[in-house]
């Protein structure tokens, strides 16, 4: 049998099995297990020969197929049959049928008109929808968002806990100058980029104060598209103003 099958095209072993069954025009209720097992193993072998990673799930299924095959090949022993119940293929058939059903459902979903792909809402509205909005609850946050917020925070704190603390005298003006320099180069900077990961807490605070000052002076605008998305700083000042601020560290002569 020639196989030109790429496992990556299959979402899992059940998907691959379904494909084999269909391409052999077999009846799903009466799978010729010997033939299917053989084909399945050939594919796995070829993948291995090509040095391609075969996901563990595909190997688990291979073992299950071999097990079913061996049970099918055993002479029918009535006692055993009673003990082990029905057809050795039964569970697999059930799983395949069920899987097939969801695969079909997925195909139907794909055809439904999807927001932002086929159907559009006024801009802005759509982004809001990304937050869970149960109609009668006054708040729209999912438990997942809550847990992720905690997780994110914890992963930041961890880094900081092991940070060596050196006391420094930090001047807001130095950080104003620093932000100005960045704004001269870029008209838009992400809020996140402003805070270097190596910064200590005091540096974070001073950077933030510098940013507040620049906002107060209306040298930068701050923009956030949706509630939790990245915050952006937009250059509002002219380059000339920024150069002056950079020199004076936040003191703007009257103009």
């Amino acid at each position, binding site marked *: 049998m020639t196989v030109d099958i790429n496992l990556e095209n299959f979402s899992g072993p059940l998907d691959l099995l379904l494909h084999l069954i269909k391409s052999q025009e077999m009846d799903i209720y009466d799978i010729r297990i010997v033939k299917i097992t053989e084909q399945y193993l050939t594919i796995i072998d070829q993948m291995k020969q090509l040095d391609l990673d075969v996901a563990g799930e595909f190997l688990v299924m291979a073992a299950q197929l071999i097990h079913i095959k061996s049970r099918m090949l055993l002479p029918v022993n009535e006692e055993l049959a009673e003990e082990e119940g029905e057809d050795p293929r039964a569970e697999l058939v059930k799983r395949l049928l069920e899987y097939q*059903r969801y695969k079909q459902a997925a195909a139907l979903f794909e055809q439904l008109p999807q927001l932002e792909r086929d159907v*559009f809402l006024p801009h802005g509205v759509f982004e809001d929808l990304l937050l869970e909005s149960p109609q009668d609850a006054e708040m729209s946050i999912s438990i997942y968002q809550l847990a992720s917020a905690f997780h994110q925070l914890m992963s930041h704190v961890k880094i900081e806990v092991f940070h060596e603390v050196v006391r420094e005298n930090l001047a807001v003006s130095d950080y104003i100058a620093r932000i100005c320099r960045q704004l001269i180069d870029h008209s838009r900077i992400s809020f996140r980029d402003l805070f270097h990961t190596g910064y200590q807490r005091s540096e974070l605070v001073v950077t933030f104060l510098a940013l507040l000052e620049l906002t107060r002076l209306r040298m930068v605008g701050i923009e956030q598209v949706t509630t939790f998305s990245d915050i952006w700083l937009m250059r509002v000042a002219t380059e000339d103003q920024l150069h002056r601020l950079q020199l004076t560290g936040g003191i703007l002569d009257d103009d």
Partner: protein
Amino acid sequence: MTELKAVIEAFLFVAGDPLSLDKLADLTETDKTAIKDLIALLTQEYNRSGRGIHLVEVAGGYQFRSDPTLAPWLRRLQKERVQRLSAAALETLAIIAYRQPVTRAEIEYLRGVDSGGVMKTLLERNLLRILGKKDVPGRPLLYATSRYFLELFGLKDLNDLPTLKEFAGLDPELAEALPLEPSDH
């Protein structure tokens, strides 16, 4: 009465999110039957051919949406490319939609593959919600589809999911496994 129709039209336009009959009744201090009639009238007016905006029933409410046949034009206004749901994501979503509430283990048994990554993506895209924990050893989390899932696919409610009739007749046991009662949202 004309006035009230205009008010409903404006509410739907301004709200953006789907508004339910209850909500509209509340906002307009009118009884629901009257509103239903006016919504039917508006729907008729909007869903005529030659209109670019349609009035649709979705996620338990009513909402203005663009006509799907105009999508090729409207995509021009799109700033970023939409991330399409992968085959794996759609498959997982289908299982959760038809079997909710389900645990991760049940999903993985049905799909035959590890589904942690896909489920994380679906959670991040707010297509799932967590319904608590299942009362079995280990107390695994129970997953269901969110209201936004209905909105994304333009479904009225969970009863509006495509019916899988081809397979429903085959195996009574499997058909039973399909809980299709409307869920609480």
